[in-house]
């Protein structure tokens, strides 16, 4: 187990390093220049050049990269060259929207996908299951923006149940208002991601039903449902856990689009604005933090997997 942990930690570190390189290089391919954005349309070329010099944009790229990397690995994300505010503080503030939104969406996705997925597999010939499967394919293919607009029209404009935009200025001071403002966005992402997860759960359950150990359990007297619940679903649970690591990445990508649509001050909207302003150091630091979170979640999933799946322990010995 210790050897496994060490290897996993090393791959995580290598992954982070590679990610930092990819993020840095790909952002440098963008056209545009933050000095020009800061100067705006009133600055002369000489003024823009002065800004560029002041921000250290004339330093050779490899040096800029090492400088940034050194900061990141010592926990110093620095401050935005455009607004002058601390990047770490900005990420922490915006995470107050994006992290709850992600978990809220994930909860909705799980609540939708787990029972329905198992049901659709268990009674796969029944009409409701077939309808569900078609709906699952459709929902998974719907673009988030469109689904969001539909939700706004239905729940805000027609029914007036939920706000269609915004997040309280005092954030979580009033949790209920905050949750309400996240409900429609979370439903949008949650249902779409839930549809993807539903199909996954369904096929995993189907193969569990057909698996030999489940049939053996039935032959020893379990009912079909009993055998599935007792011997099939633990395996399904394992695959769902490993799927969740990927799911979180999907949810974060969904948040970029959804925060824009619902005008939520989260990480996604911040990224869009920062890319527009070519605040590359802030963008690359934010992206790196997000990538690190996702990679770390992946590693965590692997470790959990190892702990709850007895087969992997056997292989090790």
């Amino acid at each position: 187990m210790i050897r496994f942990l060490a290897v996993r930690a090393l791959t995580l570190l290598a992954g982070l390093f590679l990610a930092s390189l990819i993020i840095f290089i790909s952002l440098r391919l963008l056209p545009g220049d933050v000095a020009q954005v800061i100067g705006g349309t009133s600055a002369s070329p000489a003024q823009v050049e002065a800004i560029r010099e002041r921000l250290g944009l004339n330093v050779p790229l490899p040096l800029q990269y090492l400088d940034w990397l050194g900061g990141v690995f010592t926990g110093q994300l620095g401050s935005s060259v455009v607004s002058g505010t601390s990047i770490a503080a900005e990420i922490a503030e915006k995470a107050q929207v994006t992290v709850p939104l992600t978990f809220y969406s994930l909860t909705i996705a799980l609540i939708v996908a787990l029972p329905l997925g198992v049901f659709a597999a268990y009674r796969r010939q029944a009409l409701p299951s077939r309808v569900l499967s078609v709906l699952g394919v459709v929902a998974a293919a719907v673009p988030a923006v469109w689904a969001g607009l539909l939700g706004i029209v239905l729940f805000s404009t027609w029914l007036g149940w939920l706000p269609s935009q915004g997040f309280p200025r005092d954030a979580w001071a009033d949790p209920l208002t905050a949750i309400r403002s996240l409900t429609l966005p979370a439903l949008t992402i949650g249902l779409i991601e839930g549809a993807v997860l539903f199909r996954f759960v369904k096929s995993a359950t189907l193969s569990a039903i057909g698996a030999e150990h489940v049939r053996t359990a039935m032959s020893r007297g379990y009912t079909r449902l009993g055998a599935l619940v007792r011997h099939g679903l633990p395996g399904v649970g394992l695959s769902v856990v490993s799927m969740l690591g990927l799911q979180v990445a999907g949810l974060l990508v969904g948040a970029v689009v959804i925060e824009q649509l619902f005008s939520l001050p989260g990480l996604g909207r911040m990224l869009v604005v920062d890319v527009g302003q070519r605040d590359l150091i802030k963008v690359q630091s934010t992206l790196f933090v997000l990538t690190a979170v996702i990679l770390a979640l992946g590693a965590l999933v692997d470790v959990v997997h190892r702990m709850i799946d007895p087969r992997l322990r056997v292989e090790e010995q």
Partner: protein
Amino acid sequence: MTESNTSAPAEAPEYRKRGHSKTPLIITIAVIAVAAIVAALVFWLGRDRDSTAGGGGNGAGKELVVGLQLEPSNLDIRATGGVALDQILIDNVYQGLIGLKSGTVDEFVPVLAEELPEQSDDGLTYTFTMREGVSFASGNKLTAADVVDSLSAAEGPASLSTALGAPVTVTSPDERTVMLELSAPNSQLLWQLANRPGLVFETAYTGDLASTSNGTGPFALKQWKQGDSITFAANPEYWGEKPAVETVVWRYIPDANAATNAALEGDLDVLAPVTSNMVSQFEGTDFAIEHADSTDVFTLAFNSQKAPLNDVRVRTALSMAIDGNSIVEAFYGDGKVLGGPITDLEPAYEDLTSVNAYDPEAAKALLAEAGYAEGLELTATIPSFYASDAINQVVTQFDAIGVKLNVNPVEFGTWLSDVYSAPEDGSPRQYDLSYVNHAEANDFVNYTNPDYYFGYNNPEVQDLYAQSIATTDPEQAVELVQQAARIVAAEAPAKWLINYTPANAVAKHVQGFPNSNTNSRINLAGVSVS
């Protein structure tokens, strides 16, 4: 749950027992029940709170929430360009010796000076007497030295010398007098003093103006939630009459749908502006739609340094291909047809709509004369945040004279580097056409600078403009600019598609919201909420 035990053969009892385990079922039901209860709570309890905690100004009485589009990226108005800062900070937070009468761009009023300056006959010396009892939000008294330092700044978007293009010597003979000395008369001096270059800052202030504020105006920055809102609170140190609203929230909503929804849901008291195609949604609501006059000109620039647009016949032909009225329609009526670069809010305005007026046949003939009888293919580079209705109209109308226009929407940062800035090696810019809103007032100077992105170079225009700057007679100054503008309109370095008159939605409980030039300056003096 339709389990049948009858067919089960003889088996060990413990298997049967486990087979009946209901634990997963109970967990599932519990999870769903909890989710349902949470959802019900959110729906039920939350609905009542909307009216109080939801953010709108309706319940708070003295709070005003204004929805805007473009958020500033940094609040240091001395160092950061962009009209988003002028829009909220000038008049409300920072002030100059003089300012603009609300709703005008050419009527000056004294602000931190007791009256408009005394001007020497040769137009070289301006003497200001400073108002007494003025303090910064920091609590420190405004001194003549602060004014001298602020107006002497050598660099940055707020530098007076840079704005005038000539050095200014600022001195203070005594504690209440400030003198400006010019090396040559400059008819733009008062205009610049009433704008960003004239703002006064405290020299001794050590705070970071990028995220705090320290002005002499009626409001001070309370909170900046980046990507969401900027909050002003009344400045207790303000020297003048206390503002009628205590708190002002500027909420930045780039998405047009979300902005309209925010207003209709009661989260905003004012939305400035409403995107043209959504104005009709405000019919029959608690909002009044007010069209603000403005100096915004949606400018379709032709790169005068690049073939074939360096040929005045081609530029004229393209201008004549466009029907201004159809552009106004594409803006759902939110604008006025324009024939030249100057709007009717500015003193040098003349109706030039007859110059290069809509005439597709003549346009075709001109193109043929210039050697493009078989047509042309051009590309327009436009920042992607503008609505596409107007540019689509242009594409259609160019098509009618045999010009194929490709539209290339780019991010604003890309527009700045691809269109606005000159290539570093000194070669001409490579764009064909550009489409942006020039919101600044009094920006005719751009047509006299061959290095500006229009690339328009006419020595006669430059000479007329220089004369208008140098004259001490205001009427003559206006006349000279008018002469120059006529030449510019005829030579068409750009097509002035529309003078945008943005539609602002103002809730009925808000009084006195300015209805002029709100895209570049919103003076909150006199705004109240009932």
